[in-house]
């Protein structure tokens, strides 16, 4: 950028800043402005009792660059614009009044004032006019919003505004919405005659932009008998293109939702894949460990709020190790205190851990109350971003990444550490492992602790998308077991595949048969699948008579 152009840009910015200053301060500076000639009074319409005249006047003000027009529009949107008996327009700022036409202060309150009339039509015109004003004189964000609004509600009357904005230097991000707005205006009824060439170009712009608003403009244009046939045909085919793209994106959106649901299932089931899949323990209190993880997140957040409110945004990264340790410790306690007496009796383990889950639920209910506790989503996880036509919510996206990371970590522990080797050795042949000098009891406790800790990690994630209440765990236990069994016991990849299959499958069925029926259908399908393949999708094959 040359020096000269940079200076122009600076000047433009300065102008923007000045124009954006609040109205009252300017009212004093333009004290001495000459009164506007009555014949060309652009404000006359505002005094009219008819909504249409008011809306028309507002629309006209929107294309004016004059600072006073802006001030009037702002006053109107704040309901501070009044009409006096004599036809004068006044702006009320607290107790003081100014003449709307000139901006000059008025010493005595005007007589017989009534507010300028408003209805939805006036408000629509006002929003439009404010957008036009913002486009000419707002800051960067305001300009982007204004351009998007003008593109979504194309009004050919605003064409000069858009052209002026395009002609002045502007940031790169503004170009596309402005072009889109211009194209939409050119194709809207009432647009100035521009010829087929320009219209076809506009159709192309809208086709590439896509979206429902562009589609509506194109559909209206294609139905317009007076428009040139060729451009109309182009519009028709552009609609087909846009429709196809919208379908594809909505499919992609469903897949994203499905993967996101799958990640939650994966997180919830991964702990089970260790305790049930690797150790063969049916831990019905697994859901409650997830619940404990969510409550640990809550406590971490609360503590941090009390101790160091400035660090509250980092409570989640802190909650991750905290939940792992709390739930891991709880898991080891459960293993040493309860489960080790029941090895080799899987069905009794199931009953005992179910009892434990009831106790844990009731304990949390006694401590924290039966209602939901509020776990805040930190600012850096709120909101969403657009990926093409895909709306990616940050919290769901973060959970997908988190699930991947946890899965990777579990894999590393099982495959690359001495502890993982010992775990596999103990589960494959306990006696042999013991004879090799492995302390099997310790390995049992650690393995169960690992699975429980991973359940706690799931709790951290779940606290961001679900209600944190004592019943939280019950919602996950059946799904988690189904995921592990469906994927094939003792196989982490199977767990991953099953979680994603169930997640995407569930979301794919949802629009077809409804959310609940989709879930029922999925359950029935999984039950039938397990009947055909009792060992899941990826069974570990053995040569024993029972395997």
């Amino acid at each position, binding site marked *: 950028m040359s020096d000269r152009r940079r200076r122009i840009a600076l000047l433009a910015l300065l102008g923007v800043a000045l124009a954006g200053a609040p109205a009252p301060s300017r009212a004093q500076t333009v004290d001495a402005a000459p009164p506007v000639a009555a014949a060309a009074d652009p404000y006359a319409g505002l005094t009219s009792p008819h909504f249409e005249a008011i809306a028309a006047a507002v629309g006209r003000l929107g294309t004016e660059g004059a600072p006073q027009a802006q001030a009037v529009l702002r006053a109107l949107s704040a309901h501070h614009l009044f009409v006096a008996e004599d036809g004068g327009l006044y702006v009320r700022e607290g107790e003081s009044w100014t003449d709307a036409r000139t901006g000059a202060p008025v010493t005595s309150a005007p007589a017989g004032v009534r507010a300028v009339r408003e209805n939805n039509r006036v408000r629509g015109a006002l929003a439009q006019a404010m957008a036009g004003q913002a486009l000419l004189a707002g800051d960067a964000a305001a300009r982007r919003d204004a351009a998007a609004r003008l593109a979504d509600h194309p009004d050919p009357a605003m064409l000069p505004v858009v052209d002026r904005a395009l002609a002045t230097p502007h940031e790169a991000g503004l170009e596309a919405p402005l072009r889109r707005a211009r194209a939409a205006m050119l194709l809207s009824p009432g647009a100035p005659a521009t010829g087929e060439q320009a219209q076809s170009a506009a159709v192309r712009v809208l086709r590439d932009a896509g979206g429902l608003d562009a589609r509506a403009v194109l559909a209206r244009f294609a139905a317009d008998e007076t428009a040139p046939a060729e451009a109309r045909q182009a519009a028709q085919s552009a609609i087909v293109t846009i429709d196809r793209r919208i379908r594809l994106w909505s499919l992609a959106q469903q897949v994203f939702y499905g993967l996101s649901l799958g990640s939650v299932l994966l997180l919830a089931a991964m702990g089970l894949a260790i305790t049930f899949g690797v150790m063969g323990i049916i831990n019905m209190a697994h859901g409650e460990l997830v619940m404990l993880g969510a409550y640990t997140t809550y406590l971490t957040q609360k503590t941090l709020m009390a101790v160091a409110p400035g660090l509250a945004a980092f409570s989640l990264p802190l909650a991750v190790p905290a939940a792992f340790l709390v739930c891991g410790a709880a898991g080891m306690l459960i293993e040493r205190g309860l489960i080790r*007496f029941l090895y080799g009796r899987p069905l009794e383990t199931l009953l005992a851990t*179910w009892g434990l889950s009831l106790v844990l639920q009731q304990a949390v209910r006694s401590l924290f109350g039966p209602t939901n506790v509020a776990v805040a989503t930190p600012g850096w996880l709120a909101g969403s971003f657009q990926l093409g036509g895909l709306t990616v919510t940050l919290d769901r996206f973060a959970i997908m990444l988190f699930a991947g990371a946890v899965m990777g970590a579990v894999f590393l522990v099982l495959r690359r550490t001495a502890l993982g080797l010992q775990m596999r050795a103990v589960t494959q042949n306990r006696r042999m492992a013991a004879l090799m000098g492995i302390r099997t009891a310790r390995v049992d406790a650690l393995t169960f602790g690992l699975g429980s800790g991973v359940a706690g990690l799931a709790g951290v994630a779940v606290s961001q998308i679900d209600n944190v209440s004592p019943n939280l765990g019950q919602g996950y236990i*059946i799904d988690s077991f189904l995921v592990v069994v469906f994927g094939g016991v003792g196989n982490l990849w199977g767990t991953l595949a099953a979680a994603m299959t169930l997640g995407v499958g569930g979301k794919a069925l949802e629009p077809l048969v409804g959310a*609940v029926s989709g879930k029922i259908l999925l*359950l029935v399908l999984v039950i039938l699948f397990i009947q055909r393949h009792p060992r899941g999708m990826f069974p570990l094959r053995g040569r024993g008579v029972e395997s």
Partner: protein
Amino acid sequence: MTGEFAFRGVVRTAAAVLVVAALLALGSLLPASNPLSVSPFVVTLAGKYLAYAMLALAVDLVWGFVGILTLGHAAFFALGGYAMGMYLVREIGARGVYGNPDLPDFMVFLSWKSLPWYWWGSDHVLVAAVLVLAVPGALAALFGWLAFRSRVGGVYLSIITQALTYALMLAFFQNGLGFGGNNGLTDFKDVLGFDLHQPGTRAGLLIISALVLAGAMLATRALVGGRFGRLLIAVRDAQSRTRFLGYRPDQVKLLVWVASALIAAVGGALYVLQVGIINPGEFAPANSIESVIWVAVGGRGTLSGAVIGAVLVNLGKTLFTAWLPELWLYGLGALFIATTLFLPQGLVGLGRHINRRRDEVTPEVTRPAGDAA
């Protein structure tokens, strides 16, 4: 070992059930001023316990004798209950809130024009009786046939039975299914012309429940007592070996499974008659698991233990939730843990242990190596 002396306790327990039920029923017919009078509430409660005892008996049959830990038996119980509920709802006739002689209230509320086809004949008591048995029986037969044929067993079977009842719960919660959605079926008026709110009717229902329960106990005792019972134990403890000996464990399991579902279904029908409401909550997986703990507390594989466990645990629940509601879940949870850790044979086993009459205890569940599934 199970021999010709086996399960004497069943006859004693059945007799006790009958005597207590008869006493309560008689007591409820006395005028309220009489010191021996029993309130209708207690009669209804006793009826509920007996219905639950049927469910426990059903669970004991499959868990205690063929080793299928079902976590979904409440599904059959609730289906039986719904079948009975349909009949009772139709009995209301034009006395409902909306006064529609053909449609139950909730259907009028949903502005349905006619009965769905599957309600056909539900106003006839014989059809209702057939439905009570046929629907859960058919579901159990289909599910069992699929599962046992492909040798789904152990924990896997437990988990899919749980998924089954969970899926049914979700389905029955939907209004569109035509069973009253969330509210289920309730507001019943009478059965076979007898007013359900009359003490006499309630006393009669309690006696009937006791008779049915006693009958079911004796029938299951006959089923598991003889040669067939030994085959069941063999299937439970060494399925592969039994198969190698030429038996068909899948068929044996299927037979017992369906019989058990039928017992549960009759229990559900009795439950609805006396409690007066059936809703999708009865399908909740937690209910099924609770019914397993009744059996565990009483004594798995003893039949009488199931009945004793169901009555005692539910009595405890009634008392606990009235006195110390917040402690009930602690109590129930502790019961699960303590029973599995310290009372593997349940109360009946404990009693026999004290009496040194071990001959009546079914052999302890031992798993030969390689039979872990």
